[in-house]
């Protein structure tokens, strides 16, 4: 891994893509004013693709073929007879998976996602992320599925690639209202039990819940061979707690009211928030999951760029350890 996947909104200008001209990035505020989600996603992806020509990287769908020495028990259908004729040795021909990437987008629609102080809500931002990824992948003819959840599963669209699927997906994202509580475990469990084929799972949530059972559920997904990416969507005030006046604070998820003087509690809030984030990061790095923290005022192209570069790194790394039947790519 070349760099930590966590980056914050503050380093928009100084990140690896900082050398690019600023006007190339679309301001998320203006983007969110586009009502149509599909249009919004297309704007992001097109902007991204135009910038991609200058990118030193060449996509991530590289094909690999491999020979492996035959061992008793292997299917003899896959023996390369031509190679046997040449070398008088049995080799098994290893194929790439024939299907395209199956990507599952898990979007948190709980009440806490309806919070936002920059003119739009976290949920809006998360939906745009999901739409962008879905659109991007559909351009590459990959299958995309969607699962929206709050304290229960709201909608589940299996991963497919067919005409109109992407439109259906966008519709589902658009109409999904915000629920009340968050239950990530249930969503992860649903994916783990219903999706047999390995693929990519993208969890888009603010993860402002207890982390007790998260590790187990994520580990379960990883163990089934899924590639898991966590995109943590946060409002800037949640990161720095930039309130100044004492006030009644209303928990929009539990409905609890507390009188809080920000000046006196900021230190402890930041400390606790940091501990929570640290714990989350430890869980993710332990399981080999990429974790991206996305403040909602950050341009979405950067998110897409981070995601792809991270994936490229991962693929490079995983080529060396490829298993005979495994392999992913699109």
């Amino acid at each position, binding site marked *: 891994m070349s760099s930590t996947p966590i980056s914050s909104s503050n380093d928009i200008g100084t990140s690896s893509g900082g050398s690019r001209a600023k006007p190339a990035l679309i301001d998320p505020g203006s983007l969110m004013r586009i009502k149509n989600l599909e249009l919004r996603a297309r704007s992001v992806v097109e902007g991204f693709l135009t910038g991609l020509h200058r990118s030193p990287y060449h996509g991530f769908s590289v094909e690999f073929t491999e020979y492996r020495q035959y061992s008793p028990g292997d299917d003899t259908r896959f023996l390369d007879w031509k190679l046997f004729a040449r070398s008088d040795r049995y080799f098994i021909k290893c194929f790439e998976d024939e299907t395209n990437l199956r990507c599952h987008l898990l979007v948190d629609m709980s009440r*806490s*996602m309806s*919070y936002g102080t920059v003119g739009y809500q*976290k949920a809006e931002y998360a939906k745009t992320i999901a739409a962008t990824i879905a659109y991007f992948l559909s351009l590459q003819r990959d299958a995309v599925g969607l699962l929206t959840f709050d304290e229960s599963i709201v909608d589940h669209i299996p991963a497919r690639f067919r005409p109109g699927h992407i439109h259906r997906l966008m519709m589902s994202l658009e109409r999904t209202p915000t629920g009340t509580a968050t239950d990530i475990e249930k969503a992860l469990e649903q994916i783990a039990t219903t999706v047999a084929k390995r693929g990519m799972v993208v969890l888009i949530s*603010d993860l*402002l*819940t*207890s982390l007790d059972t998260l590790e187990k559920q994520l580990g379960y997904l990883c163990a089934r061979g899924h590639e898991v990416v966590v995109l943590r969507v946060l*409002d800037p*005030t*949640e990161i720095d707690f930039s*309130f100044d*006046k*004492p*006030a*009644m*604070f*209303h*928990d*929009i*998820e*539990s409905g*609890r009211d*507390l*009188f*809080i*003087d920000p000046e*006196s*509690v900021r230190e*402890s*809030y930041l400390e*606790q*928030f940091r501990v*929570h984030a640290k714990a989350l990061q430890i869980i993710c790095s332990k399981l080999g999951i990429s974790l991206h923290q996305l403040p909602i005022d950050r341009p979405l192209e950067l998110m897409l760029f981070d995601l792809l570069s991270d994936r490229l790194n991962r693929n490079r790394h995983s080529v060396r350890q490829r298993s005979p039947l495994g392999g992913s790519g699109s």
Partner: protein
Amino acid sequence: MSFLFGSFLLGTAAILAPILFHLIKRTPKDYYEFSSLMFLKPTPPQLTRRSRLDQWLLLAIRSLAILLLAIAFMRPYFRAQADLSLADAPTRHIAILIDRSASMQRGDLWKKAIQDAKWVVSNLEPTDEVSLFAFEESLETLVGPEYSTGVDRQQRRQLILDQLDNLSPLWGGTELGSALQNVAERLIEADDLSQAHAALQIVLIADLQASSKLDVLQSNQWPESVRLDLRIITPAEESNARLRLLHSSDDETVDKQIPRVRVSNALGSKIEQFEVNWSDEQGQQSESVPFYVPAGESLVIEVPYEQSRLTPDRLVLSGDDERMEFDNNYYVVPPIQEQITIAYFGSDSDDDPAGMRFYLSRAFSETAARKVNVESVVSNAILNWEFEQLPRFVVITETISQAHQSAVDKYLKRGGHVLVVLTSEQMVNDLGAWLGNVQLDSAASESTSDQDSYVMLGTIDFRHPLFVPFAGARYNDFTKIRFWKHRAVKLQEVENATVIARFEDQTPALWSVNRDKGVLYTLGSSWNREDSQFARSTKFVPLLSRWLEIAAGNRFAGDSYVVNQPVPIPEGGETRIIRMPDDTEIRLEDESNTFKQTTQPGIYSLMVDGNEKSFAVNVADSESEIQSMEIEQLEQLGISIGTTLTQAEQLERMRQLRDFELENEQKLWKWLIVAVLVLLGIETLLAARRTRPSISFQDSRE
């Protein structure tokens, strides 16, 4: 300006509340929604760090509102008139009533009572009138309420203090009801006379035993204007027992006679182990009998003594609380068997069952209390009956001589009772004139009917004292008595004859004639076997006993009395002197037939013409009670319990009343409430104006 309820001034302390609220920096006007409070802890309300008050105007308005509210509650008013003077308030009249019954002899009760009374006197207001009464069974006025004229108050109080020093408890019972009623009436009477309209108060200093008598109060209305202040004096000791000698029943034989004593232990007593013994005047004592009586119960025990060695006159209880000894002696007249003589005029012998004496002498068996001797009077005997040797009863069954007739007449004159039994028609003829001109009914000659024909008693006057005991339905059956023979007489010429019973044929069977103080009874038949079945009937013995009872008449009905109980004294005799237990002697008036000065317990002796007869006087049982009466019992009788106000207090009350009236007329508090409402309105407007900008800011932010 004055205030009715100054204590509401404390309400101004509530001004601190708004000041405190102003200092507390709690600003709930800002309201933020936040995604999750999981990393936040509530901040406690704080005082502003600078401890500086802002919003001075609001604070001032709120404080002023609270201040005005407090003042409104204090009910301010303007005093206009001049003050009242002491002369405007009524004076007080206090009657001190001291219980001097026997129970006040206990322990140091009397000392405490006197101390209490002196305390009351010394704590009187200078203008208070005071009087002093004491009571036991009767009320004694020591310093009356009417005494006031001519003597100034100070002298009067000194007089009361002197009287208290000389006062001592007596031995009577507690007539609380009549004493209270009398004192209340006296107070009202004195108040009406003097037109003082004073506040009337009785201070009762008593031990207020549960057994005090209150019946008078039940039948009378307690005057409302008199209040009763109770000063109950309770003994420190809580144990007391009393004893009584039980009268042995007549059935008992002489040999078995052991005096039986009942000992009652008062409810709530702590001591339960006692001893009882006999004692005489010199202090010689019989062997004591120990026993155990639980509190609130009584026990009957036998206390024997050797009659040969001791002639005791009192029972002594020991083991009782030391200070409760006032009721530990029970005085008893030394038990002496009464010798009763019946004079019998007749010639038949005592062992002849055909005669009448045979039955008469066997009708009265000897008991511990009495022995009846039937003395036969020989026809030529000279009779000389003196006082105390007089026969109790005279029975005449044959014709008596002139001398004997005059002797019997003399006996009748002294109140004697004589029964003449007409055994034959000859006797009717002989004694007819002496009996008051009794004549044989010539029409119906002596019914010499044979054995088959008989007569029974046809009419009996059960209202006559002689037959009163037989009046009940169970006893009034005289049909078993058959008379074979009876003397048919007519009484038309007999003066004052009262026919008590008649035979079936309407001839008189039994009649009485009053002769001076005595009574002469005549029976128209006899209890001879030949004449009737009377002697063998169940009515014979009771009837004779009843005759003896009536004949005993005005002798001592008993020999044990309670203090202050009038004792009936037999008449006759030249000089009658009563010797009191303390050896003082009282000569009785000739006419009086009761003795009322039984003021102390002990043995009293009546001496008539050198003969002496004793009776015992004891403290009433009720005085031994140690339980106190419930005060509610007095309240139920309508007595208003409590102290009347002193003149100063009355004045204060009048002043308060007048202040209330003034305040009620002026009603300043209403204007203050209006001012408070106006202030609160201003405060609301100001507060709204100050909070609005922040709310709009909040709205815009959301």
